[in-house]
């Protein structure tokens, strides 16, 4: 079954944990964009949702850091963060070991991946699910790209991984949706939190919407670090979504800085109908 949905969204913990500290007008328009993404996702009738995230040391550490990892369990738990701090109660999130196992087998034809029968979700997955599958009733396939512990996954490998994910989705009998989550420029969890390079973000999202492979891969970690912070390393997840969309063009539904959330809060989707 061809891929039924592809999009990207922000996942910063402040989005739920510090919601009342944001400008209400901007915040509510951002939440509305998230809600429209939920409606569109539901309309695509996915049997499973692949969440490509950049996890933050909830499962993987520098003793054994996978370049790519995919979950393969019937249930997951999260958030690992204090629920009051994140503003999301602890949940048991449904997965499908069966779907994941077949999906991973397909992905492995194009990319080397680690699989994990245990996976604790952090804000990188829980914040998007809070808005997109609030009833926790659609099986989730968690995916991770190493954006945290250098040496990081090279950008062109993230692109290839997205191509492998697309090939796997197309080979599956189920209807699969792909959602990548991450920040664009940001300096998260540092004293610089709230610093946002809006111009850089809009330029990146322009490349993303055009689905311009060469432009999306025309970054290196040193300049990303300088211009977009350590949080900018998470562009890998957006790049994978672009590759998975296989030439489709994208639309940015929302991309505005909300400093107390630490990022340009973003919701964008690809049009897979053409």
């Amino acid at each position, binding site marked *: 079954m061809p891929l039924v949905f592809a999009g990207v969204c922000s996942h910063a*913990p*402040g989005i*739920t*944990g*510090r*919601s*009342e*500290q*944001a*400008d209400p007008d901007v915040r509510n328009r951002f939440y509305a964009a998230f809600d429209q993404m939920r409606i569109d996702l539901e309309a695509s009738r996915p049997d499973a949702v692949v969440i490509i995230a950049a996890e*933050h*040391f*909830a*499962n993987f*550490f*520098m*003793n054994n850091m996978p370049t790519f990892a995919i979950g393969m369990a019937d249930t997951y738990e999260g958030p*690992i*963060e*204090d629920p*009051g*701090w994140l*503003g*999301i*109660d602890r949940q048991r999130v449904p997965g499908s070991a069966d779907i994941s196992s077949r999906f991973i087998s397909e992905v492995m034809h194009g990319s080397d991946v680690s699989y994990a029968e245990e996976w*604790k979700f952090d804000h990188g997955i829980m914040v998007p699910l809070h808005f997109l599958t609030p009833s926790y009733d659609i099986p989730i396939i968690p995916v991770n790209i190493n954006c*945290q512990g*250098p040496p990081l996954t090279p950008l062109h490998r993230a692109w290839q991984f997205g191509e492998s994910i697309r090939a796997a989705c197309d080979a599956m009998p189920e209807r699969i949706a792909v959602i990548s989550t991450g920040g664009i420029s940001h*300096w*998260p*969890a*540092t*004293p*610089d*939190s*709230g*610093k946002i390079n809006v111009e850089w973000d809009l330029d990146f999202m322009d490349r993303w919407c055009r689905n311009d492979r060469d432009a999306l891969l025309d970054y290196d970690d040193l300049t990303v*670090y300088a211009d977009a*912070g*350590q949080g900018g390393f998470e562009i890998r997840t957006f790049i994978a979504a672009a590759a998975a969309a296989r030439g489709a063009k994208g639309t940015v539904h929302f991309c505005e800085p909300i*400093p*107390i959330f630490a990022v340009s809060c973003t919701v964008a989707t690809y049009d897979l109908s053409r």
Partner: protein
Amino acid sequence: MSLYAVQKFLYELNRSEQMQARYTADQASELTPFELTDEEIAALISPDIGKLFHLGVNGQILMHFAAFHQIEWQDYLQRMRDGIAEHGPVREGVYAMTTGVTDTVVPKTTAKETTKENRSS
């Protein structure tokens, strides 16, 4: 220097409620298996968020440790900034500070204090 060990301890603590309960009851025993310097042990037990940030602890790990200690967000950010002012720049790793020690990135006028009562769920 054993930044790896400090981060490994925090990684294990952050993801385990059972370990958090044990650590709350007996900090020293939970730290014993990790090869930590006296400086690192003191910073963890305090907890000295500014010192840990200065040592190079990844913010994504440190943020969770601060939340575990019920340290409010703006306070967490200020403690890191104070740590840099007191101890100097981040020693290693990619979670450095790029603004000045007296800078305010997000004005507090737009960042009210957070309480459990007014958090969304």
